[in-house]
């Protein structure tokens, strides 16, 4: 076996308060797919950003084909043949695919004019070679997510990358698109490219990887191959203790109807249809999980139900009230709690002290307001109680929300929404990007709300979370609920097919 294409030795990186990478050694051989597995916050992205030159390591060296290299910025990385496909695409939405690709290394015609034609020809050649068809003239923001990712990959190849780093590529794809990606990965490795595949999804690792390394808390905790290990063992290495995959909960006892949605139609920000005739019901004391890949209309559905987005068709009944065109305040006052998908945009005012964020929806009601006057003491005591009850790690109640960790910020939102006596709880991506401890805490609270008779509508892209918490699971695909299945009998494969829009009957394999 010749020299490894890429070797890193003793890579260490400290951020204020956390040791992101702790003396990591790693090797990547030519034509190999190395899967890098690890929890959110385990240091995967930090390591890759160091290799790609976005961050500079505090200690350690990087070797390309046996030769040590200094990578201070992405330009050095590109010169060493390293290319990175980011989780949030590094494409400029308003520019065309061709413009995005030639950004930074433009072909020039006549001293200073861009040579767009030549670039387009080169892109078409590359996409044929690796089976990545995408229209170079299209503007990026008009392309579907899958096509944008293909454009990102071509962008890396266009720069002559030998080593490709794919950072959580399947997070935004349907299972089918994921399979197409795996085919592309195989064709790339056959043509001599080497790939580092970052993910926290166990199933993918088993299917695509030649070798697997696992990171936890910034340290390399193990190297293995799919053949030598099992998903349970990988999960254990990832989390370092027995993962409570299954939340203990008794079977649900659905009560009276709380939310009834008939043939709901909603448009997205660019006036295209996002929700095309959704019909669903949620009863008291029941968790209805809405599974589906991001971008299939979940965000618009949730915003429509909570009054944040105009409804263009259909009807919404909440506890007997017609809330189809209700304003957000009306929906809240009827008795709805809403854990928003984007906690920084909707959930919190980051500049506010924690105590003000905790009364964001109820500031105008007693005890917080009496005869047109805010009661600072009442707001403060309410905050102190909630901070204890929901174990929010904050120095004081006056500390701005911006200085809390992601998990604690989410707990502030949960504390605010769960402490109000509500009949309906809508939770969108409640545990995205937060530490494991907080995830378990929030899941327990959701189940507690359900057992207390609250109707819960859970929208999440994490299939495991949906399967763990839901009593019934509705799968949404291109703005329609194509099927609703009881949670106990649902299997991952079945849900995977549904999420890709393939009905049980048609599958018939």
């Amino acid at each position: 076996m010749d020299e490894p294409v890429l070797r890193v030795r003793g890579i260490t990186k400290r951020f204020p308060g956390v040791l992101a990478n702790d003396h990591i050694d790693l090797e990547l051989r030519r034509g190999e797919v190395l899967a890098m597995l690890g929890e959110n916050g385990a240091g995967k992205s930090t390591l890759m950003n160091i290799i790609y030159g976005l961050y500079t390591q505090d200690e350690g060296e990087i070797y390309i084909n046996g030769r040590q290299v200094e990578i201070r910025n992405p330009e050095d990385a590109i010169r060493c043949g390293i290319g990175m496909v980011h989780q949030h695409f590094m494409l400029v939405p308003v520019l065309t695919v061709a413009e995005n690709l030639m950004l930074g290394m433009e072909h020039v015609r006549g001293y200073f004019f861009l040579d767009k034609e030549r670039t387009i020809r080169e892109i078409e050649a590359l996409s044929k070679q690796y089976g990545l068809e995408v229209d170079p003239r299209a503007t990026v923001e008009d392309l579907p997510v899958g096509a944008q990712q293909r454009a990102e990959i071509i962008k890396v190849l266009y720069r002559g990358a030998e080593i490709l780093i794919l950072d959580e590529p399947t997070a935004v794809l349907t299972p089918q698109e994921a399979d197409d990606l795996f085919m592309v990965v195989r064709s790339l490795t056959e043509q001599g490219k080497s790939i580092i595949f970052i993910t926290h999804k166990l199933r993918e690792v088993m299917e695509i990887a030649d070798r697997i390394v696992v990171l936890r808390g910034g340290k390399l905790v193990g190297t293995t191959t799919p053949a030598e290990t099992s998903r349970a063992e990988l999960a254990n290495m990832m989390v370092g203790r027995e993962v409570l995959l299954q939340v203990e909960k008794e079977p649900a006892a659905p009560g009276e109807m709380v939310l009834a949605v008939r043939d709901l139609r909603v448009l997205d920000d660019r006036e295209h249809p996002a929700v095309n005739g959704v019909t669903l019901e949620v009863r008291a004391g029941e968790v209805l999980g809405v599974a589906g890949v991001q971008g299939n209309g979940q965000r618009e559905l949730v915003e429509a139900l909570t009054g944040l987005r105009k409804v263009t068709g259909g009807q919404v009944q909440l506890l007997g009230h017609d809330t189809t065109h209700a304003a957000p305040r009306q929906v809240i006052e009827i008795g709805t709690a809403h854990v928003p998908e984007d906690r920084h945009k909707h959930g919190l005012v980051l500049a506010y002290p924690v105590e003000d964020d905790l009364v964001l929806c109820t500031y105008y009601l007693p005890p917080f307001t009496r005869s047109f006057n805010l009661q600072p003491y009442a707001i403060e005591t309410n905050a102190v109680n909630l901070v204890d009850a929901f174990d929010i790690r904050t120095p004081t109640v006056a500390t701005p929300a911006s200085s809390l960790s992601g998990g604690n910020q989410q707990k502030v939102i949960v504390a605010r929404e769960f402490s109000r006596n509500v009949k309906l709880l809508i939770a969108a991506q409640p545990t995205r990007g937060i530490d494991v401890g907080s995830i378990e805490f929030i899941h327990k609270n959701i189940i507690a709300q359900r057992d207390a008779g609250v109707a819960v509508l859970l929208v999440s892209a994490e299939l495991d979370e949906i399967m763990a918490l839901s009593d019934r699971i509705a799968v949404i695909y291109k703005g329609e609920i194509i099927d609703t299945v009881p949670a106990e009998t649902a299997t991952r494969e079945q849900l995977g097919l549904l999420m890709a829009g393939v009905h049980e009957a048609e599958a018939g394999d």
Partner: protein
Amino acid sequence: MTTETDASRGAESKLGLFSRRVFISILSIVLSLVIGGAIIALSGGDPIDGYLGLWRGAFGKEKAVVETIVKTTPFIFAGLAVAVGFRGGLFNIGVEGQLFVGSICALIAGYAVELPPGIHAAFALLMGALGGAVWAAIPGYLKARTGAHEVITTIMTNYIALRVINWSISQNGPLRLPGSALPETRRVLDSARLPSLTDTTPPLHIGVVIVIVAVFFVYWLLWRTPLGFEIRTVGLNPSAARYAGIKVERTIVLTMVISGALAGLGGAVQVLGLLGYFTTGFNVGLGFDSIAVAMLGSNHPFGVAAGALLFGVMDAGMKTMQLRTQVPRDIVVIIQGLILLFVAAPLLIQPLFRLRQVGEGEQVSISATWGGEG
């Protein structure tokens, strides 16, 4: 690990942030005065004598103190108007126009209606505030309804207000004092004049008391009422405000209305308290200074009052300074610019005086994107 969550620690950190900001403001003022002195010296003037003149002009004699206070009053009203705007996430540059419209409305209410003394003055003040409020509601409504950025629309309302008022007091304009060859309006009836505490010119009118009440009112409104909470929430994060059920559009218009009312009230006080009529060249140039005052006071009512006093002292003192030292009075505008620079860029002065690293919270930020709601 356990965390103490007692309330006292919360208050102390709030105080910590406040005293730091006051320290930065004082530091900025001192540094600007020193650099101003250097400029005076470089251009042949005598800084010590100049600043002595400034001090004597502002506080030298009883009459000077009165003039300083009277000059500070409109700065406070205008500064409060801009500060309320900033708190609501709106950059209201139209304060000058709103102030003029307030003056005119108070003037008309002052001579066109007969009422018993106390009530007439109150009525005229109310009309002034109403005038400013309505004039500010236009850019507010446009921002809420079409997203048209208020920086541009408020400036345009300034020019429109100035031009129309200029016509109204021109040769054959409706408000012109009949038969007068000067561009002056009719006189306000005595029953509408604000009583004066001293007989000096300019009179120390009770407008000064009204403005102090206004400062406390704005503090109470912003931090002690639900409406204030809504205004501040919309200002910091409109999406979260919408999520919390706050009617963002209504709040934007209300913020501009309150801001305009404060400016209008300021205009009314000037007409009813100071001159008793309106003429050209009256209260010119308040617009931009009020923005500097608001920023200097980091958009907090008490901060604005202090910032306004600083501008009032400079305005009152600059005449005597120029009298005694032949230093052009524009040095004061340079000093005001420098003070705003150092207050807005603590990083600039931080290494000079080994301040602790400037925290995120302290940067005053209002940069909203231009187009429709982001």
